[in-house]
């Protein structure tokens, strides 16, 4: 069944797990929560097959701290959860960023606030892109919009994480986690990362440590600027997808599941002769601000669309050239997003 090997119909969650294992992830720590349970379930079944370890932790907090521990040794490891569970990981994330420890964290977000519901949502955008934890740190955020990207971007997440010795967040949602699509397997192309900082026991070298505590006068200031410089360097890995930008008179900006649904809406608009383009940021942090700015030199009307009451729209506003009109349409979670609904909204702001 060669065919089966190259392609399979799987959920986004499974694709994340598959991508992780393919990228050399050998340790997974997690705690069940809908709608991402297929990730731990897949990991529990398949990690042992490759000599890896799966732990169902007692909580999300334990999970992120096990991740911190495993990754401090230079191992590739992952944790995943969904919104409430990700909130609980914020302290740990802040520690990892502050200690410059890599690690991949997946948020298949659900609807909030609070217990909320299990429908698709983009209410965690701020938390993801601006560091929901304390202090001035960032994590690189990758936002897939298909099952294939769940796989590809998870592999990428491990590389980015090692490249920047910083946690990387894969931000999907209930829709991406639960939907199935044919997935084409790809061989991971291993990159070499020297991990001199890894804790492996002080054999044949000096003892070393990983920490985020800086108490000497001015030391932490320097540390924060160093981190800041690193976050700036991440700009070289900005990714986005652009559709129908030529001749566009209105550019819709959206990410993840919302962008996926909007691909239909924008197509419908094009079919009706409306010049509507789409920019889909794939890295949410760093944000493709420069590309949006350049686009806004040509197109004066932007529409940010999100499954929330308005978060990413701030990044669009911060990106565009002065004088650009940026509208917003939000559909907070609780119902499934559908292309015809959005087409209507697009028409409302389409410039005459």
């Amino acid at each position, binding site marked *: *069944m060669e*065919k*089966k090997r190259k*392609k399979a*119909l799987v959920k986004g969650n499974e694709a994340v797990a598959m991508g992780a294992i393919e990228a050399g992830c050998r340790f997974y720590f997690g705690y069940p929560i809908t709608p991402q349970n297929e990730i731990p379930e897949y990991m529990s079944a398949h990690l042992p097959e490759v000599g890896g370890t799966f732990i169902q932790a007692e909580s999300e907090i334990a999970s992120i701290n096990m991740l911190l521990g495993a990754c401090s040794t230079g191992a590739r490891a992952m944790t995943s959860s969904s919104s409430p569970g990700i909130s609980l990981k914020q302290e740990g994330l802040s520690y990892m960023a502050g200690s410059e420890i890599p690690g991949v964290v997946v948020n298949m977000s659900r609807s909030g606030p609070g217990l909320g519901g*299990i429908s698709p949502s983009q209410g965690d955008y701020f938390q993801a892109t601006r560091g929901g934890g304390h202090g001035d740190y960032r994590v690189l955020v990758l936002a897939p919009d298909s099952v294939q990207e769940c796989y590809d971007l998870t592999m990428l997440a491990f590389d980015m994480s090692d490249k920047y010795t910083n946690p990387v967040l894969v931000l999907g949602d209930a*829709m991406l986690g*639960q*939907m*199935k*699509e*044919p997935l084409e397997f790809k061989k991971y192309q291993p990159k070499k990362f020297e991990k001199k900082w890894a804790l492996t026991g002080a054999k044949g070298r000096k003892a070393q440590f990983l920490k985020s505590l800086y108490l000497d006068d001015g030391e932490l200031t320097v540390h924060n600027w160093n981190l800041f410089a690193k976050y700036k360097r991440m700009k070289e890995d900005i990714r986005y997808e652009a559709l129908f930008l030529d001749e566009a008179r209105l550019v819709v900006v959206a990410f993840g599941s919302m962008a*996926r*649904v*909007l*691909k*239909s*809406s*924008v*197509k419908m608009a094009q079919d009706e002769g409306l010049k509507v383009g789409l920019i889909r940021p794939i890295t949410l942090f760093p944000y493709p601000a420069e590309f949006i700015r350049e686009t806004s030199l040509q197109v004066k009307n932007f529409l940010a669309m999100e499954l929330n009451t308005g978060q990413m729209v701030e990044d669009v506003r911060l990106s565009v050239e002065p004088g650009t009109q940026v509208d917003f349409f939000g559909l907070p979670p609780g119902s*499934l*997003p*559908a*292309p*015809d*609904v959005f087409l209507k909204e697009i028409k409302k702001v389409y410039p005459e």
Partner: protein
Amino acid sequence: MYFDLIIAGFGGQGVMFIGNLLAHAAMLEDRKVTYMPVYGVEMRGGTANCTIVVSDEDIGSPNITNPIVSIVMNKPSLVKFGPRVKEDGLLLVNSSLIKPDEVEVKGPEIMMVPSIELAAEAGNDRLANMIFLGVLLGKTEVVSLETLKQALIETSGSTNEELLAINTRAIERGAAFGRTGS
């Protein structure tokens, strides 16, 4: 080629199973396909539905407001999804659980499918869902029967001849009903 479909019913009626099967078959025919399940909170019982989109081009939204075809296996699903089927679409109704006069949908072609009875005819009254899959094959050409069988083997991961045979019988019974209306 573009096709979309919503299948809905009680949890436990096998709604997700046939949705997944169909999507798998579409993949085997090298089409683009998306399959999107929606569960209620309950593990069992409650309602469940799934949306399948099949196309030769990249698929945008995996969620559809007005499907071309909808299969409704219980009353709540009829109420929710019946009215959403496209004007020129097709609505397959489980007449084993829904009476004709309960169907107030206007627009699409409506086919009442006595799925449980047909399944019993085919050898197992629990295969009502496979009957519907068959009807779909009888009414449309979204995938071939052969691919569907292949998909059945691959997704069940078993080559149990008997199991395969009985499922195939149910699909074929459904297909016949789909083609002939009886």
